[in-house]
């Protein structure tokens, strides 16, 4: 017994047993259920019938649903690109600040992120709504516009909500990469008469790429799986794959099809994650 106790593998599993069992039962098993359910037939009032069936998988590629999936993919990609375009200079600004101010700015950056996502989305609802939103009401009372702008219930509103929600998690890893940057490299480039633009493009940008890729992953995945943002800012018209999935459980009671759609979404994310890991190991090997 005493020898067993001193065995490192035994010690490791003594520590890991409880959390691992918990996650296997309440995470891996549910994941397996979603997988199995996508090959079953729907029950009459929700639930499933244990009959093997490939119909759900085929239906996922039905243009009606697949188009929504592609649109979600498009929204997630556009959101990621805009967040990157807005986040990079912000990260640069923070990394370029005096050392004492950096910590404060990061703190100020993260406060909105730790504020409830639902509430931040609701804040935009009160700003964007077509007839009663603050932006349209104000612009019309100033006489700038005569008809309300189409700010709500469309892809624009969803993308804006997502960009707003995830901007801080894009900035953070880019900032971390820029902050670690060796400034003597930049000086060397300047000494060799590289222009400001060249220094940035040939030195700063490549060295910050790991942060850019990490930030993009952190924005892309939750954007593709968005549920709250389209539910509130899509105005019931503009939906994403997350809403279609939830409808299968809350409205249509088609659990197997909902499971199949979830699998599609998770596979898309898995592919993105694999590309990310491939890329990071490749650049680590290169450097």
């Amino acid at each position, binding site marked *: 017994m005493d020898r067993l106790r001193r065995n490192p593998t035994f010690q490791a599993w003594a520590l890991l047993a409880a*959390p691992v069992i918990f996650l296997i039962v309440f995470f891996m098993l549910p994941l397996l259920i979603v997988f199995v359910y996508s090959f079953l037939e729907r029950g009459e009032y929700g639930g499933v019938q244990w009959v093997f069936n490939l119909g759900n998988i085929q239906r996922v590629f039905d243009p009606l649903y697949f188009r929504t999936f592609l649109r979600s993919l498009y929204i997630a990609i556009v959101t990621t690109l805009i967040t990157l375009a807005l986040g990079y200079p912000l990260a640069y600004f923070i990394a370029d600040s005096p050392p004492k101010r950096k910590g404060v700015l990061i703190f100020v950056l993260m406060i909105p992120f730790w504020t409830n996502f639902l509430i931040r989305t609701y804040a935009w609802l009160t700003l964007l709504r077509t007839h009663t939103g603050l932006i349209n009401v104000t612009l019309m009372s100033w006489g700038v516009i005569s008809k309300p702008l189409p700010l709500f219930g469309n892809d624009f509103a969803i993308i804006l909500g997502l960009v707003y929600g995830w901007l801080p998690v894009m900035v953070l890893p880019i900032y971390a990469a820029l902050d670690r940057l060796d400034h003597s490299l930049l000086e060397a480039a300047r000494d060799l008469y590289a222009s400001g633009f060249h220094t940035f493009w040939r030195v700063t940008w490549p060295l910050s790429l790991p942060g850019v890729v990490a930030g993009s992953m952190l924005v892309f995945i939750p954007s593709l799986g968005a549920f709250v943002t389209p539910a509130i800012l899509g105005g019931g018209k503009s939906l994403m794959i997350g809403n279609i999935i939830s409808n299968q459980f809350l409205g249509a009671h088609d659990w197997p099809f909902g499971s199949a759609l979830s699998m599609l979404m998770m596979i898309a994310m898995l592919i993105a994650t694999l590309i990310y890991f491939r890329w990071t190991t490749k650049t680590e090997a290169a450097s």
Partner: protein
Amino acid sequence: MTTPSSAGYNARRDRLRAKLGGWSLTTYGILAFAFLYLPILILVIFSFNDSRSVSKWAGFTIDWYFKMIKDGQIMLSVWNSLFLAIVSTAIATVLGTLAAMGLERYSFRGKTAVDAMFYLPVIIPDIAMAIMLLLFFNMSGIGFTPWKVNFFGVKLAVPYSVIIGHVAFNTSFVAIVVRARLAQMDRTLEEAAQDLYANAWQTFRRVTLPMLMPGIVGGALLAFTLSLDDFVITFFTSGAGFNTLPVRVFGMIKKGVTPKINAVSTLMLAVSLSLVILSILLRSRSGDEDAVQMGF
């Protein structure tokens, strides 16, 4: 050809450019922070609006806060949220700390797989996790039965399914934060304790745990915040009739926008803000720079 005077001109031009670049960067920084804060600020302002509108200012009032406090449904959901956050944080902190110690301090066969399993709940979008858990609880038939409890004099009925769901995503977050702390920790003190014939438990209790405490507290605060903020997983795993504050707010938004929602939002904002400040204070006391940079 570069004459001395044109070299001087170039240097001046470069300095001017650098200055202009610096100014435009600062201007951009200010605008970006304004973009992050303005919507929240407007939300707070209109919680004091003396009208049902959340876009036309009609004078100052704190009526909406009274209406919020008098709303029994909202208050019940506040208690539900608190109870759920406390219980799930307590369980997740224990499980996450155990996992962090096992994964950081040992290597064994199959570790990569276990590692990956602990990262999955962090990566997977909440809607996917919510659906998985919903199906699991429906299939296994456990879960939706409520835990009836008297919480500071308020009678609550919290479904086990929701508690389990919150522990499932929080455990991984706690494990990550505690692991980061463990990785930074100096092991020589533990070795010294063992050299002085402290047994494994004494070493853990007297040396490892006190040094690890900032990580554990940080992880617990993160879990608590995530649990209070969660909407999607609670919404799908609770079955009918159970509301946390975010679930209640979502229902209110669906019914129509009033400054009462702004008042509830302001309350939630204040809670999040206090939690963030608390965690920063704890962090700065323990001098944990990297964790601050990670934003946890």
